């Protein structure tokens, strides 16, 4: 087994193990804290794929900001205990169906993808910050602007909900 494969299985084990804790833990703070190793494991996979910029963004946004916001929200509610949440509700069947459909889709994509190594002389698409910026403000500008509108709307919605009393 090559070193790359060893690293891949290690990272996959970290990601899946923490993922299992996130889903099964009855303590919501433990679940939120377990997000950190799960997201860092995915970061490792990005690095293994030579997508360094995406890996940096993954740590900065997901591990460093989203997880902090989740922890922050949990600690501000429920008296800071993090305990007492139910793990199941009446929607179990619907949830299971959605999860199964999603899994089927992902497996179908994985099976149908051509995983053959690129021909000799072929170059990897460039993942430098410059290339990503060009792509955002060039070909994909509509998606980029659409995302920014979604974020703006959610920001304004949060302010509206928080300030409703005034």
């Amino acid at each position, binding site marked *: 087994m*090559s*070193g*790359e494969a*060893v690293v891949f299985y290690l990272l996959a084990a970290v990601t899946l193990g923490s993922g299992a804790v996130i889903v099964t833990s009855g*303590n919501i*703070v*433990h679940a939120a*804290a377990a997000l*950190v190793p799960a997201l860092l494991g995915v970061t490792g996979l990005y690095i293994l794929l030579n997508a*360094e*910029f995406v*890996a*940096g*963004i993954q*740590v*900065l946004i997901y*591990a*460093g*900001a989203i*997880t*902090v*916001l989740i*922890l*922050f929200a949990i*600690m*501000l509610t429920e008296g*800071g205990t*993090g305990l007492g949440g139910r793990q199941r509700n009446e929607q179990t069947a619907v949830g299971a169906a959605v999860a199964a459909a999603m899994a089927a889709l992902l497996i179908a994509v994985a099976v149908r993808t051509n995983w053959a190594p690129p021909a000799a002389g072929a170059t990897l698409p460039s993942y*430098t*910050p410059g290339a990503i910026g060009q792509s955002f403000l060039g070909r994909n500008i509509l998606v980029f602007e659409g995302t920014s509108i979604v974020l703006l709307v959610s920001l304004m919605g949060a302010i509206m909900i928080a300030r409703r009393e005034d």
Partner: protein
Amino acid sequence: MSWGWEVLRAAAGTVIIFSGVALVAAMFGVLLERKISAWMQSRLGPKHVGPQGLLQTLADTIKLLQKENIVPTRADRTIFASAVIVVPLAALLDYVVIPFGTTRSGPLIFRDLNIGVLYFAATSSLVVIGILMAGWGSNNKYALLGGLRSAAQMVTYEIPMGVVLVTVALLAGSLSTVTIVNGQSGPHHLWYVLEQPVAFVIFLIAATAEVNRVPFDLVEAESELVAGYFSEYSGMRFALFQLGEYGEMFAMAAMAVTLFLGGWLGLPFLPPVLWFVIKLYAVIFVFMWVRWTYPRFRIDQMLSFSWKVLIPVSVLNLVVTAFFVIVVRR
């Protein structure tokens, strides 16, 4: 390059960074802090252990190593224990991309990542998770309040810092720390502190807030919160938090030197590494000078200062810099 060699190199790098940060940043940093605070307040400071009190922090560390680890009865043990690892680890990771100097065979750096500045922003943002975990896991209202304040503060000040990092990267045309330092040399390029004085000031303010020092030390305000998020920690765990805090402060100072003060560049009569160290300690001195001079902000003042002053100014600075880089330079 074989994998075994890489793993060995990574392990050696970890040991070097950890012992370097523990000795130079944490131990010597604490001593320096006590000496400088004493000097500013017309006292003598530590004087008895070793020549001029030089070995004081060494003695303190040995004392802390011997102390009992106390865990509060109703604390969450897993979170309580793992928070101690997250804070120093996040601080140590910063040092991977800092260029300490240059030799004949190339710059003295653990890894010259082509996303260096982004990597620095990412790893330093991980500290706050450890602080939140410590605050919550202690099951103590002062610790929890300290942790929550820290989350609000660090998330707020990460934004102006990120914008400043982007500004400098734009000017240098690269995210690599080595390229940024090299961009400040030569006859037509000045240190970025002269080209970007506004960005430098914003970086210093945001760095002070990120490492929770006065005037932004609401996270561990003694008069309100005992010691904030690490109130319940004792012995070596307490020492590890101190290591994380001073490690982060030295990393921020090293980044300020790299981005704005020309890194290892200097006149040729001293070796480059020495120039780096001199500038590093100059920035550290500014941090300590501020700490022992200014009173503490209130939380609302601190948050609105970042949202209403620092972020607009830094974004404006970014726009002006982008205009300069695209229109004037071409």
